[in-house]
C-alpha cells in the first residue's frame, strides 16, 4: 500500500534532515541519488546566506562561516522562497558565537550586511529634497513628520568601528587592523538614486532618523538630540540627510497615483 502524498513528504523531509544512516529511513533514502537532494537544498541556503552576508563571510573565512550557516539553517530554515532575503535573524543568531570567539565587531558588521540587503530590495520612492522643505510655510513645520526613505537604513554601533570595517571590505580593501580606532561608529545606507550608497553617520544622525521613523514631528525629533549630551549642528545634519536622499516626501505631499 502506497503512503499518502503527505506521509511520503513527511518521510522525505525527515530523511533529508537525518543526515543519513537512520535505520528507519525508507529504502529509497538509501539510494546514492538521495544525497543529491540532501545536499542541494542545504547548499542553496548556505550559498544564499553567504551572498547576503558577504563581509561577515570575509571576516570569519569559509570554514567558520559554513559551520555557523549550518547551525542557522537548522534553527531558522527559510520560509520565504526569495533567498535573496534569507537570513533576517542571522545577526542576532551570531551574538553568542561572536562572544564565544571574541569577535566583538561581528554582529555589528552583520547588521550592516543586512541593512544593505534591505536597502537594495526596498520600495522605490523619489527622495525629498532640501528645496522642497524650504518651500514649506513656516507654520507647517511644527507638525511636519519627516519620513525616512523606504530604502534608508541607519545603524549606530556603540562600541566598535563597524562602519569602517564593513565599508572597507565592501570596497575590497582589507583595513589595517592596527590603525582601527576602537570607538563607536554610525552608518547610513541610502538608495534614492539607483544603487545602494553608504556614508558614515553620527550618533545624532542615527537618533534623529529613528525619531523620524517613530513618527515624531520635526521639532520633537530634533529635541531627542538634547539627550545625547553633545552639541549638534541641527541644520547641517538635516541638510546632509536630505542631500543623501534619506527622506521621502511627507505623507500629505504624496503625489496622487
Amino acid at each position: 500500500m502506497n503512503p499518502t502524498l503527505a506521509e511520503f513528504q513527511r518521510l522525505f523531509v525527515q530523511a533529508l534532515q537525518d543526515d543519513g544512516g537512520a535505520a528507519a529511513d525508507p529504502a529509497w533514502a538509501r539510494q546514492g541519488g538521495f544525497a543529491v537532494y540532501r545536499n542541494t537544498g542545504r547548499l542553496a541556503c548556505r550559498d544564499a546566506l553567504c551572498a547576503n552576508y558577504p563581509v561577515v563571510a570575509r571576516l570569519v573565512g569559509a570554514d567558520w562561516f559554513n559551520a555557523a550557516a549550518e547551525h542557522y539553517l537548522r534553527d531558522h530554515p527559510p520560509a520565504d522562497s526569495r533567498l535573496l532575503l534569507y537570513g533576517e535573524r542571522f545577526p542576532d543568531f551570531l551574538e553568542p558565537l561572536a562572544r564565544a570567539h571574541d569577535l566583538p565587531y561581528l554582529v555589528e558588521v552583520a547588521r550592516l550586511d543586512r541593512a544593505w540587503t534591505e536597502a537594495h530590495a526596498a520600495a522605490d520612492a523619489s527622495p525629498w529634497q532640501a528645496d522642497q522643505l524650504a518651500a514649506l510655510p513656516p507654520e507647517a513645520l511644527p507638525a511636519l513628520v519627516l519620513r525616512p526613505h523606504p530604502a534608508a537604513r541607519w545603524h549606530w554601533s556603540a562600541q566598535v568601528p563597524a562602519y569602517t570595517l564593513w565599508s572597507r571590505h565592501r570596497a575590497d580593501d582589507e583595513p589595517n587592523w592596527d590603525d582601527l580606532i576602537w570607538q563607536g561608529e554610525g552608518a547610513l545606507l541610502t538608495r534614492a538614486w539607483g544603487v545602494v550608497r553608504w556614508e558614515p553617520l553620527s550618533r545624532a544622525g542615527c537618533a534623529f532618523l529613528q525619531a523620524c521613523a517613530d513618527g515624531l514631528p520635526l521639532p520633537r525629533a530634533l529635541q531627542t538630540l538634547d539627550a545625547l549630551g553633545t552639541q549638534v549642528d541641527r541644520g547641517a545634519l538635516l541638510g546632509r540627510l536630505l542631500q543623501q536622499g534619506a527622506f521621502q516626501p511627507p505623507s500629505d505631499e504624496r503625489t496622487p497615483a
Partner: protein
Amino acid sequence: MSTPLCAGLGLKPEHFDQALACRLPGLWFEIHPENYLVDGGPRLAWLEAIRSEHPLSVHSVSLSLAGIEPPDQARLARLAAFVRRFQPALVSEHLAWSSWRGQYLPDLLPFPRTHEALGVVAANIDRLQNALGRVVAIENPAHYLDLPGHDWPEPEFLAELVRRTGCRLLLDLNNVRVSAHNLGTTPADYLRDFPLHAVVELHLAGYSADPRLGDALWIDSHDAPVCEDLWALLAGLLARTGPLPTLIERDGHLPDFAELRLEAEHARRLLTVRAGSAALVDA
C-alpha cells in the same frame, strides 16, 4: 503556432550589458521570479531595461505544485503582480514540490506519481493559472531516485495534467537524458509517448557526473556546455514538433556571454532549418 521566440538564454546579472545589447533574431531571456520579487530597486529597474529590448520567460522554481499545502496566496498574488508588470511571453514551473509545513526547501523534490498526487498537482496548477489569469507550462524534472509506488509514467501524468487543467508543457531535454540515465531507461523510451502537442518550450543544458558516484549518477548541473548528443536529441525532436522556443540553461562555471551566444546561435540554426522544412511540408 507562430511565435517570435527562437533561442533563449538564462539571464545572468554578470551579462547584463551584453544581454541588453544582443541583437540575435528571436533571442529571449528566462529568469527565476524568486530573484526579482522585491518591492523596488536596481534588480527591477534592470529587468525593465531587458524587457524593453527582449521577450522574457518567467520560470518559477518554488511554487511546490506537488506539495500537499496549496501555494501561499500572498506568494501567488506577488507573482501575479510581477507577471502583469513584465508581461512575459512564457510562464512555467516544475512538476515537483519544495515546501513543507511552511518551510521552503530550495530544491525540486520528487514524489510517487499516484492518482492522489495527480489530483493535488492538478488542483495547484488550477490555483496558479487562476491567480495569474493565464496558462502556465509544467516542466519535467531531473530524477535521482528510483521511487516505488508510481501509478503513472511521467509522460502520461503530464498528459493528464494538460487534459485536466489546460496547462502546457516545458520539455527539458537534459532532464530527460539525465533521468533516463539515472533510472536505467532511454530518452527515446521517455519521448515515445510524450504529449508533444502541448510543449511550448524546450530546455537544454549541460550535465555532470556525480562527484562521489561518478557516471553511475548524472546531475542536471547546468555548469557545462550543451554536448553533441543533446544537440542530436534536439534535432530529432524538432523533426517531430517543428520549431519551439529553446532555452540554453547555464548557471555554474559561467562563461563569457559570447560563448553562450554561440550556443544560442547553434540552437537558432537548428530551429530555423526545421522551420524551413516545416514550412515546406505545410506548403
